[in-house]
């Protein structure tokens, strides 16, 4: 291997060489710079290769021919190798990226850049304290120098502020060094560590100064105003270095210092880190400037990593895996985002909509924010999982809470930003970029995915988890990224075949319970995808997102351990988020969806981590073995997490918008299929953990209430909607309430009913959404009162809706009735009475909105402008007709699906099941015979119909205004169609129940956060002196807290 010193030598040598060149020879200078950086990269890459592939041992490189403490030594180990690679590669790519700027500025700029990169590698490599200081100062000077060269006039001030702060820091640093030296007699870091600096006289204070000086370089809250200014005003290429490489190097320096300080300094690191993480994320919320936002995010991420370093006492060796994962994710993502920011002309966040003209950039962006938010399959996700798992195992719950809260806020503003990109108007100035710039971003993108793979492998190796990027469904989903150039119908066929094939290959794996979900997820998904044939063109981005969601879903039911389950959960969440975001006006709704979902996911994560008690691999079935006092808390966390997905009341506000604003074929997917994921989670939870008590409160009883209230309020809100898809969305809340109620009953029939609801709700809600979507497509509106009388023009859609509403309402002979019948039988055997009152009230209310749905769309008066519309497209109708057939079949023979489940449920709830004799189904209380019901009703209906046909054979068909109208006649269909505010009296009587309490509550939460952030970020008033003061107070406070503790 090449001596690591050559990394520094290469940079220094090249920098000197540049100084010798004439100023005209900029091209040559640029080539030299690139060459030097490439050499550095190559050397570090070689070392990484050596450590990873050949398992080489760390090597010390001595200078001056003697060993420390008499000389400075550099150490090259795996972390150093990776970090130097990171620093030099970032430098190289940024140099490529800044080609035009560098060539315009000349050799001086290139030399400074080289020095900067060299200084950073120096910080990483050196094991000598004073040398560290020197490299620090070099880094500072070169950073300031680069700021001097920035195009942005404001960068000057930023650079000066930086210098002020660094002057103060260097004072602290030097004081620390000299006292530490005085105490230990060595400047070598390892030497100091072995000499246990802290135990020496004045050692603690010396280390405090050292520590604080280095930590302050990480821009801890509140002493970080200067850092933000640099992020905001520096050239993005340089900001990438500053964010990715400098932070990483300094973090590593902190890590080295902590070696000296020992375990007693860890809490301080954690404290500073967490506070910084939270504060920076919070302050980022009201940010509108993209680069400043990136700055806040960078500060937050380094804070998080610092906090993780502070946990090394319990993380042990895993700290490399976790902090490394976070650090690399952060570095790559931030470098990439900063590079992208250079391509965008406007500095407001919505200006980034310009990226839409280049899908690859959008993909890069989303990759980067997924890395930052710790979403699978990126290293951050694995790191997050392991970190929370270990922290929970050690009982550091508060820390988990704070970290997850910060992550949620961060995901909030990042995804809001992504929403702007996808949804806002594309600004006039488009993206301008050179191939160099694109390639820099592309390298970041590729390394992001590669790292995802590496971390997956590591996770597999050390913790026994599966590598997500090797899971077949995920691979299948990602394949669509490569196939995105194909026309939509080809991709659609591939997707349908893929889903069906996967089911065919795996259907023997599932127990009857999972089988139901597998069929709904895979076959059901394939059926809904039939509707997607209607889309023309290429539909960029649709199929990767869809298939990612399906991958998540299928992995969810196949998961055996909590990690797999959680990973699947996050995958389906992101997939569905992208899907929902595709809707025309879905930006705010998709955002609230992802925030609620991630919030729920974090609760699940915390729950799983708490349950695992530190065990790296925790089987889901092992949840059953949990005992007091842990079990109810785990139950609570998981239940709330899952109920977020089923949109239980209070957590429901994301659903109506998300489901109704989604595209026509997406709505049935997210409603008919995705909601079932939450139910599946609950089923798994209840199956393993059963009833739990917390402070004497039966938690399933609470769920019963939540279910009942969801059913009631969901239905009640549905009847007041004017928007057809919104109505259906609220109805989903109600239906999920029923299912939740059934599960919470915790008896055999309750579960059977819930599963029946799962099947039924999939069929009829998908059908109704497709039908409503088809109508909306033809009429160009979703407002029901603007439609009317479409029955003659869209008879098939009408039939689908008719069958759908009969099924939803539970009227015999369709399958909804079976659900109601089991429901009644289930509640009789349960001892809970009061919640039933609520759910009884919910039942008839369903009729109200269902009638409104069919009446105001298909019946009543046809409007002028819709006189010529056609039936919904064939591809919308086809799945609807399949559903009609399914509903009828399921109505006649529910046993096909339920019988096996019924038997299976005996394992969980022995007894209390149904008797299946012939076509009759009976319970301990009652009986019904679906076939007989169907036949009887058909015969009665047919007879009467024939009779009426006979009597009325000469009926004159009349038109829509041939109605009695008190001897007058209608003039306009609009004023004759009674549709708007259909249930006005109901609003008068019970409208108080549908006050948007939940919406107000959550609005209040977000507004409070925003306002608090907006007020407190005024701390950063832009005055360099204030920043100096912040720094000083930070030091004083840190000192007081440290010494006080």
């Amino acid at each position, binding site marked *: 291997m090449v001596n690591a010193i050559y990394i520094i030598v290469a940079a220094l040598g090249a920098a000197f060489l540049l100084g010798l060149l004439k100023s005209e020879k900029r091209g040559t200078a640029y080539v030299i710079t690139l060459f030097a950086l490439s050499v550095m990269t190559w050397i570090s890459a070689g070392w990484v290769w050596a450590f990873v592939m050949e398992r080489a041992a760390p090597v010390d490189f001595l200078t001056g021919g003697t060993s420390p403490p008499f000389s400075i030594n550099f150490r090259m180990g795996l972390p150093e190798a990776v970090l130097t690679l990171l620093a030099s590669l970032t430098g190289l790519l940024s140099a490529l990226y800044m080609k035009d700027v560098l060539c315009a500025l000349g050799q001086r700029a290139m030399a400074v850049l080289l020095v900067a990169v060299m200084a950073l590698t120096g910080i990483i490599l050196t094991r000598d304290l004073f040398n560290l200081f020197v490299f620090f100062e070099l880094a500072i000077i070169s950073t300031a120098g680069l700021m001097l060269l920035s195009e942005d006039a404001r960068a000057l001030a930023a650079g000066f502020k930086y210098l002020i702060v660094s002057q103060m820091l260097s004072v602290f640093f030097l004081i620390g060094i000299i006292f530490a030296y005085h105490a230990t007699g060595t400047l070598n870091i390892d030497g100091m560590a072995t000499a246990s600096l802290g135990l020496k006289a004045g050692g603690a204070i010396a280390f405090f100064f050292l520590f604080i000086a280095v930590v302050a370089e990480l821009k801890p809250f509140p002493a970080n105003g200067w850092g933000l200014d640099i992020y905001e005003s520096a050239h993005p290429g340089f900001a990438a270095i500053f964010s990715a490489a400098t932070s990483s190097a300094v973090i590593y320096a902190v890590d080295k210092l902590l070696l000296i300080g020992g375990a007693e300094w860890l809490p301080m690191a954690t404290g500073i880190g967490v506070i910084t993480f939270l504060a920076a994320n919070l302050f980022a919320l009201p940010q509108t400037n993209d680069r400043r936002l990136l700055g806040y995010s960078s500060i937050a991420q380094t804070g998080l990593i610092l906090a993780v370093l502070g946990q090394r006492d319990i993380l042990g060796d895993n700290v490399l895996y976790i902090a490394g994962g976070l650090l690399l994710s952060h570095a790559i993502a931030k470098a990439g985002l900063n590079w992208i920011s250079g391509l965008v002309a406007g500095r407001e966040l919505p200006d980034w909509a310009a990226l839409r003209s280049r899908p690859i950039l959008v993909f890069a962006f989303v990759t980067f924010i997924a890395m930052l938010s710790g979403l699978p399959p990126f290293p951050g996700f694995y790191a997050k999982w392991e970190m929370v798992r270990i922290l929970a195992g050690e009982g550091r719950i508060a820390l988990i809470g704070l970290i997850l809260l910060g992550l949620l806020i961060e995901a909030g503003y990042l995804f809001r930003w992504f929403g702007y990109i996808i949804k806002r108007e594309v600004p006039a100035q488009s993206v301008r970029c050179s191939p160099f710039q694109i390639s820099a971003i592309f390298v970041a993108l590729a390394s992001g995915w590669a790292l995802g793979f590496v971390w997956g492998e590591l996770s597999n190796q050390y913790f026994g988890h599966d590598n997500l990027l090797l899971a077949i469904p995920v691979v299948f989903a990602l394949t669509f990224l490569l196939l995105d150039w194909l026309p939509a119908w080809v991709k659609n066929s591939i997707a349908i075949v893929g889903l069906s094939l996967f089911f065919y290959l795996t259907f023997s794996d599932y127990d009857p319970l999972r089988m139901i979900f597998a069929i709904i997820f895979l076959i059901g998904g394939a059926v809904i995808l039939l509707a997607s044939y209607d889309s023309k063109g290429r539909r960029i981005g649709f199929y990767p997102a869809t298939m990612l969601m399906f991958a998540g879903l299928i992995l969810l039911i196949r998961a055996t351990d909590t990690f797999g389950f959680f990973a699947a959960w996050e995958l389906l969440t992101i997939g569905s988020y992208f899907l929902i975001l595709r809707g025309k006006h879905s930006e705010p709704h998709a955002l609230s969806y992802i925030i609620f979902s991630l919030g729920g996911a974090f609760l699940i994560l915390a729950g799983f981590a708490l349950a695992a008690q530190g065990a790296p691999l925790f089987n889901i079935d092992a949840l059953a073995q949990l005992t007091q006092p842990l079990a109810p808390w785990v139950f609570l966390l998981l239940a709330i997490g899952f109920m977020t997905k089923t949109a239980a009341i209070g957590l429901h506000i994301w659903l109506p918008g998300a489901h109704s604003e989604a595209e026509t074929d997406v709505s049935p997917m997210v409603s008919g299929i995705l909601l079932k994921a939450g139910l599946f989670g609950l089923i798994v939870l209840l199956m393993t953990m059963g009833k739990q008590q917390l402070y004497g409160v039966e938690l399933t009883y609470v769920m019963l209430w939540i279910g009942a209230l969801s059913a009631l309020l969901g239905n009640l809100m549905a009847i007041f909607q004017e928007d057809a898809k919104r109505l259906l969305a609220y109805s989903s809340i109600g239906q999920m309430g029923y299912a939740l109620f059934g599960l919470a009953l915790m008896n055999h029939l309750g579960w059977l009913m819930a599963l029946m609801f799962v099947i039924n709700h999939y069929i009829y809600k998908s059908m109704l959404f497709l039908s409503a979507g088809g109508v909306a497509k033809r009429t160009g509106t979703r407002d029901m009162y603007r439609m009317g009388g479409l*029955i003659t023009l869209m*008879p098939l859609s009408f039939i689908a809706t008719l069958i759908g509403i*009969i099924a939803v*309402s539970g*009227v*015999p002979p369709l399958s909804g*009735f079976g659900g109601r*019948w089991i429901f*009644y*039988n289930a509640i*009789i055997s349960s001892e809970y*009475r*009061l919640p*039933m*009152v609520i759910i*009884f009230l919910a039942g*008839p*209310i369903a*009729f*109200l909105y269902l*009638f*409104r749905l*069919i*009446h105001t769309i298909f*019946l*009543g*008066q046809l409007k002028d402008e819709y006189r010529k519309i056609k039936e919904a497209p064939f591809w919308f109708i086809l799945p609807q007709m399949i559903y009609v057939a399914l509903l009828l079949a399921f109505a006649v023979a529910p046993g096909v699906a339920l019988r096996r489940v019924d038997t299976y449920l005996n394992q969980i709830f022995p007894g209390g099941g149904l008797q299946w004799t012939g076509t*009759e189904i009976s*319970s301990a*209380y*009652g*009986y*019904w015979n679906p076939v*007989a*019901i169907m036949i*009887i*009703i058909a015969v*009665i*209906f047919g007879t*009467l*119909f024939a009779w*009426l046909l006979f*009597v*009325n054979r*000469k*009926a*004159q*068909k*009349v038109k*829509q205004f*041939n*109605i*009695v109208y*008190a001897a007058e006649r209608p003039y306009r269909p609009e004023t*004759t169609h*009674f549709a708007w505010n259909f*249930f006005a009296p*109901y609003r*008068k*009587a019970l409208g108080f129940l549908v006050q948007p309490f939940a919406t107000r509550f959550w609005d209040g939460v977000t507004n409070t956060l925003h306002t608090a952030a907006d007020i407190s970020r005024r701390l950063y008033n832009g005055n360099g002196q204030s920043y100096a003061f912040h720094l000083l107070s930070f030091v004083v406070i840190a000192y007081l807290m440290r010494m006080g503790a």
Partner: protein
Amino acid sequence: MPFDWMKIPYSLLTLFIVVNYGFFLNALIQKMGARAGRRYGIPIWQNYVDMIKNYGLRSSITHGAMFYLGPVFRLSGGVGLLLFVPTIYGSYMFSNLSFAGDLILALYFIFFGTLGMALGAGESGHPHAAIGVSRGLAQVSTAELPFALAVFAVALQYQTLSVTEIVAAQQGGFLQWTLFTNPLAVAAAMLGFLGSMMRPPFDVVIAPQEIPIGPPTEYHSAYLALMQTNRAIFPIAKIVIYMNLFFGGASDWPTFFFKVFLIYLWSAFVGVVFPRFRVEQSIRWFLIWAVPLGILSIILV
């Protein structure tokens, strides 16, 4: 279980008896209402005549398929409801088609006709029809609640959903009736009953002068005749459920006639005395007076 074909003629016999009794009872109740208003009232056969006349009308119009199907739904709902519940306790002949399902089937089948009718009325395109349906649905959503609670209380009390078994449990003297064993449930149910009979004070749905008879505004001729037939069957079918659940059922036809008459009389009695509620008033009324009774009944049972 092989199907017993004799069930069909037996059921038709039940249907025949009930239709006629329904026509008779409707007229009788109307007459009693007239007498309360010091009028002589209609001839007792008037409803037959009206029905024949409506079948005898020569012309008719149709607004479309659903308009056509509305009355069919309606009458199927009535007939089905009747046939899904055993009429005479202990009689094989008049157990009708109750083998197909239990109480829950009957309860949910009530909505079959209502829904179909509402759809048919909807297709007529008449705003009054829609207004009537809107009112009807709004009112029924709370009127059904006390009844559902009472039914549930009864089911809990007897631990069964089979109508026959519930009746069986009430045999052995009238003190065994649910009326006396669970008076709260019966009180709640009977208040709910008022709401489902389309009589004052809960007849704002068809408010004849305001929204000319609401949903059936456009119906006439044979459509109307079908609906009239249903008006003979449906109340009886409903009352049969009440009778079976709360009043010990009937083990022979005279008892049946008598009990049905008395239960029907209850709604007529209230109907001739009270003026009409607006929808929100009746919703509040049910929630304030009837629902608490129902809640009490299921808690105390």
